[in-house]
């Protein structure tokens, strides 16, 4: 049974609540009708930088964040302007984007798709970000790219190397400047042949997610075309920190090359384990045992220390490019100088691609004359540019992938200082790593149509 006591206080309280409830719908409705999500209305525009600050790719994330800060500073007219001076387009004059001062928000992806999407959603819904950039894991990049497509904002992918990002998971609102696994394999294969010959047996350790899968698929296809044999492919969890149990069986497997399809902290740990197990001094099938790391970075080389010496891999960009290979890679020195002045050490390739992406976005908005994602996407499609450190580059419209030269590197035997751990072996021209948009490794997806949201 319910007993109802009517009191003066109770009546007042109920009345106030009911009144507030009734008044609710009469509030002025001022829905936004600029035609796209988060259209900047004031004199500022907000960009969202979503990078891993924790997890196996935290080092890369920290460097990406530095690059984003530098890019924003340059766009707003601060510092020495960096690559704004060498960029082939001269639309950016240090007054922000379209006269609006650039502001930014940051978030932690934790190298987890879920957390990354939550962070990106809060940037879009709470902070009004009109563009999201970052990522350091292809799994995260694919997830956030999907979110940006749904929400109607532009996603400028940072460090993501999986074929899927611009392959089966490509999206109309997503753009990638970084190279991909196929390009790595295509550039690396000839070098591997000249270094280790055409008769090798490879054992793959592969990070168990979209990047690892496509990286392994690509390098396996490229090396088998040389005549190599693939002994085994073992998948390892991304969150793993100790790889001894995966390394132990390698020597008994009959393989004479270990391919580490690992990146960031994974690669640092697995390479260290491999060296501890004596793989570098080992002999197999009458040959010296070799280790290959298809995707490389200065940050990883720094983490792995002297273990990295002599190990070949590929990079999107290297800070020594312009010094060693000349004018073609103009922009490199300008960027290295302003980054070095601000932070005291040279930038990694992750930093470079994020910086370039921010500039490319700003320029595309300026050329389009609008922040509307569809206009920006149109401005970026089949856009040809130069002066961002990679030589002449094209943003292919069919899959939103950049095509440019790929750098093949190896760990230096006798590094002079802690930033000079990697030496450039050769640069593979863009033509040699270009593929058709419907290449089997990239098929199965579709861009869909651009979504301006709202």
């Amino acid at each position, binding site marked *: 049974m319910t007993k109802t006591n009517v009191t003066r206080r109770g009546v007042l309280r109920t009345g106030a609540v009911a009144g507030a409830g009734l008044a609710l719908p009469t509030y002025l409705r001022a829905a936004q009708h600029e035609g796209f999500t988060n259209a900047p209305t004031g004199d500022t525009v907000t960009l969202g930088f979503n990078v891993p600050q*924790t997890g196996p790719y935290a080092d890369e994330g920290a460097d990406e964040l530095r690059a984003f800060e530098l890019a924003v500073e340059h766009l707003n007219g601060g510092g020495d302007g960096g690559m704004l001076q060498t960029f082939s387009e001269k639309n950016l004059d240090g007054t922000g984007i379209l006269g609006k001062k650039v502001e930014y928000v940051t978030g932690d992806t934790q190298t987890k*798709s879920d957390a990354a999407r939550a962070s990106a959603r809060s940037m879009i819904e709470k902070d009004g970000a009109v563009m999201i950039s970052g990522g350091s894991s292809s799994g995260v990049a694919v997830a956030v790219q999907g979110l940006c497509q*749904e929400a109607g904002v532009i996603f400028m992918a940072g460090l993501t190397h999986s074929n899927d990002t611009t392959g089966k998971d490509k999206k109309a609102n997503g753009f990638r400047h970084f190279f991909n696994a196929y390009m790595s394999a295509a550039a690396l294969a000839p070098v591997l042949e000249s270094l280790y010959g055409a008769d090798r047996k490879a054992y793959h350790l592969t990070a168990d997610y*979209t990047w690892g899968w496509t990286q392994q698929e690509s390098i396996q296809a490229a090396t088998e075309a040389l005549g190599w044999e693939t002994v085994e492919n073992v998948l390892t969890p991304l969150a793993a920190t100790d790889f001894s149990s995966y390394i132990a069986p390698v020597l008994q497997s009959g393989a004479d090359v270990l391919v580490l399809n690992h990146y960031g902290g994974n690669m640092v740990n697995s390479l260290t384990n491999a060296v501890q197990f004596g793989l570098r001094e080992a002999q197999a099938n009458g040959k010296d045992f070799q280790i290959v790391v298809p995707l490389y970075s200065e940050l990883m080389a720094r983490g792995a220390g002297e273990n990295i010496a002599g190990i070949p891999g590929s990079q999107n960009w290297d800070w020594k490019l312009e010094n060693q290979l000349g004018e073609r890679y103009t922009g490199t020195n300008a960027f290295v100088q302003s980054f070095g002045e601000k932070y005291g050490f040279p930038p990694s390739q992750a930093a470079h691609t994020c910086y370039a992406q921010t500039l490319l976005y700003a320029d595309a908005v300026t050329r389009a004359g609008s922040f509307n994602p569809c206009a920006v996407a149109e401005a970026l499609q089949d856009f040809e540019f130069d002066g961002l450190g990679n030589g002449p580059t094209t943003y292919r419209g069919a899959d939103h992938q950049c095509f440019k030269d790929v750098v093949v590197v190896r760990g230096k035997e006798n590094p002079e200082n802690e930033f000079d751990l990697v030496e450039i072996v050769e640069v593979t021209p863009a033509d040699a790593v270009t593929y058709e948009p419907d290449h089997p490794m990239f098929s199965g997806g579709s861009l869909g149509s651009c979504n301006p949201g709202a």
Partner: protein
Amino acid sequence: MLGLGRKDFGLLVIVALLTLLAPFILNPFPSDSSLAQFNAGYPDLMQRFVIFGIFAIGFNILFGLTGYLSFGHAAFLGVGSYAAVWMFKLLTMNVIPAIILSVLIAGVFSLLIGYISLRRSGIYFSILTLAFAQMSFALAYSVLTPITNGETGLQIALDDPRILGVSQTADGSIPVTHLFGLEMRATEVVNMGPWQFQFSAGYYLCALLMLIAFYLAIRIFRSPFGMMLRAVKSNQQRLYYTGLNARPYTLAAFVISGMYAGLAGGLLAAMDPLAGAERMQWTASGEVVLMTILGGAGTLIGPVLGAGFIKYFENIFSKINDNVLHGWFAFLPDGIEDALVAVVHPFIGKGWHLTLGLLFVAVVIFLPGGLVEGGQRIARLFRRKPAPDTERAHQHTPAE
């Protein structure tokens, strides 16, 4: 009313008002002020508040009433998410079938795990549930990759069949989740002077389900069944000696809380159609334990408060960066500004875990009953005479 006592009904009404008015309550600062950083009234976070509220309410039915500490509840949440996303992929983007299936699958799954784990109690039960959850995580993360898409997470795609819906919309994009046409991400933005409030369809669906979940939890707490569960908590031996078999009761509580977790998982997927294996990781299971203890285990409202507290820290504090700090302290002289930023730096951004940890320690030491106890102490300060209710509440607890 509604079969509830006066006090419980009052609590339900308060919770209902809080959830309905959340877009206002959580956005107290004008959107262009520097304090807007602390606004939590945007759809994603509000949805998380209520969804993890459901998760914690369910967990509390098991932990708060029977005292069985499960360290594997995230597994049910994850299973619910996967079930929901598969529903979106195969059947329709309508959220109703997805939510129903996620609750059912989580129920069956928890029946299985509960049947085995509940053969032991205390620490052994906790370890068993933890083991099962880690097994589920490992399965989802690598072994069952064809079903779960591993670390990348299960997502909907343009070429999914969606028998009762469309594979892709007319303009070639992936359809969005909806409730009979009402899009879950539809948000009405209301500007009132400098304030901006966002009313999201998805949020109100979650809020409605949380209210139903909360109502059911009250009914369970006050039912004879709830009394039996409390008896299990206070002394299971005695229960057995009186000739009662406790296991059916604990199993029922376990399955109910598993279904709550499944509902939460299904809702997460309905708001954002993606399911990742990390939802099943032990850290996620630990999080719901923290939520419940932080808010007040065994209390009705506690877990909801705890869930809100933790999600607020995760989403708001993790986004404060040095740049923001410099903005706050800009009025100070440069040296002091930099020093202050350096002091605060470890506690914000990626250091939010540290802040949360310190607060958790403080709450457990000074308020063993969680945030609810804090609220009661404050209420007692303002009350004219010492409250007789708390004494009465104590009498409810059976003697040890």
